[in-house]
């Protein structure tokens, strides 16, 4: 636990060395994305001449769009996945391989540490805006939402670890990150709430582990989904982590056998 806390602290210290980057990542990007999505949903609903879509009113869409972009920023992994890929690709992974801590554990600790910090800063804004504008918000559900988000981060990190292991075999594995994160953006429901998709896609998507990236926590805190579906999402995350973890371990072991110690 001591080494995990130290690695988490390293993440925060490293990010604080670059203040502008941190503010862009934690605040500016989600603020801009949120403004775009809120405007988009307001335009769609007024263009349709209706106050309801899929059984939910305008204020639900505004609250969803607001939270979705901020939660989506917390639950996506760009930076640490690039770092892991780069460490393996360049051979800097040696520094971790020779320490009594695993590569997976070291980066999970850093990733969670960094996200704790950004979540504290980033999720405060939608909370204040929802309260100020009187948008739907179940305050008592916020602690559970945070638990769900941080449990989901284990799954996200495991996916990133699996992608990073590809760098043992392929030189430009960075392109996988882009494809994967674009897919997650849609599958998590950041762009469109998953309950608007037609059946059977709606059911599949809502029960996939990716839904816990945005749709489940945001739906739960804005009162869009119930407690039962929310609790079921923990099972989906666990299943997803086990599958992704199995692939990651397999790739890692094969990768180390092929590794030359100077980069892939």
């Amino acid at each position, binding site marked *: 636990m001591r*080494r995990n806390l130290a690695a988490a*602290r*390293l993440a925060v210290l490293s990010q604080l060395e670059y203040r502008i980057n941190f503010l862009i990542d934690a605040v500016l990007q989600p603020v801009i994305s949120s403004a775009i999505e809120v405007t988009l949903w307001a335009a769609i609903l007024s263009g349709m001449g209706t106050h309801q879509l899929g059984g939910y009113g305008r204020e639900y869409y505004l609250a969803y769009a607001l939270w979705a972009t901020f939660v989506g920023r917390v639950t996506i992994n760009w930076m640490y996945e690039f770092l892991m890929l780069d460490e393996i690709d360049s051979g800097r992974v040696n*520094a971790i391989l*020779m320490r009594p801590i695993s590569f997976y554990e070291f980066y999970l600790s850093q990733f969670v540490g960094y996200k704790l910090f950004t979540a504290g800063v980033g999720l405060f804004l939608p909370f204040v805006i929802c309260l100020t504008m009187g948008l739907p918000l179940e305050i008592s559900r916020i602690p559970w939402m945070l638990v769900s988000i941080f449990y989901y981060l284990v799954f996200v990190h495991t996916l990133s670890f699996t992608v990073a292991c590809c760098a043992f075999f392929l030189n430009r594995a960075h392109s996988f990150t882009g494809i994967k994160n674009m897919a997650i953006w849609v599958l998590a429901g950041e762009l469109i709430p998953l309950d608007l998709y037609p059946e059977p896609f709606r059911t599949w998507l809502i029960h996939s582990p990716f839904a816990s990236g945005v749709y489940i926590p945001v739906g739960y805190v804005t009162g869009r989904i119930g407690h039962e579906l929310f609790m079921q999402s923990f099972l989906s995350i666990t299943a997803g982590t086990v599958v992704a973890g199995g692939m990651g371990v397999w790739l890692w072991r094969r990768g180390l056998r092929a*590794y030359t*110690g100077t980069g892939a």
Partner: protein
Amino acid sequence: MSVVIETKGLSREYKSYRREEGAWNAVKGFFKRQYEIKPALKPTTLTIEGGQIVGLVGANGAGKTTLLKILSGLIYPTGGEVSVLGYKPFERKSEFLRQISILLGQKAQLWWDLPAADSFNLLANIYGLDRIQAKKDWLHLAEQLDCSAQLHTQLRRLSLGERMKMEIIGSLLHRPKVLFLDEPTIGLDVLAQNTIRVFLAEYVKEHQPTIILTSHYMDDISRLADRLLLIGRGEIVYDGTVDGFVRHAEQHLKLDIQSEETDFEQVIHKFFEKESSGRTARRPLPT
């Protein structure tokens, strides 16, 4: 003294993609890759006892770094057996990793964005060291290496020599029993090289670790090493003392040594010249 490192027929091959020049060959290579397998380390049998400083010398591509990486557990061997402190290095068990350290002169192992002091604190936590004692240790080491003033500067802003001193402190913080040093003085000025040599000599006297040292600066080897392993094209061609190598080089490696060329550096240069022209005798020297 007890045996710390033991190998039997240890070898490693590297597989690499090969393609002829030109656009058509690039298109062909897209669909069908041709690989070639190169032996980086030919079957090697070796025993190293505790408390020794072993100098591993060879030309670029001779296989010395490969041997070092296998012994430290960074890479898997392709064949043979290896044991370091009773462990198979490539399994990288936590108890093994706590007893060894590797310093790769050409690759930073501390965290680039942080001051070295933060990196040392992190290492103390990773190794589960007592924080107060660890801090005393790194302050003491920094004093010995004359780099205390740079401890709180971001690593990326340090000069090469200062960075290398920090890397050395980072590699010694947990007091390893076996220390692998791969070109620790590479690219440093004469003064910094000397500071590091003096420091290493004193550290060894005090703590008695086993050190495997590679370097292209023969002063590093002649001043520090108790034993010389000369490696050429993936195999060990000499195992003995530095003095022994100079005495027997002409006779056994068939080097054309002039009467005035009797120092180690000159003899090694002759060896490298022979090595690059592929005419070196493949007969091991007596120790």
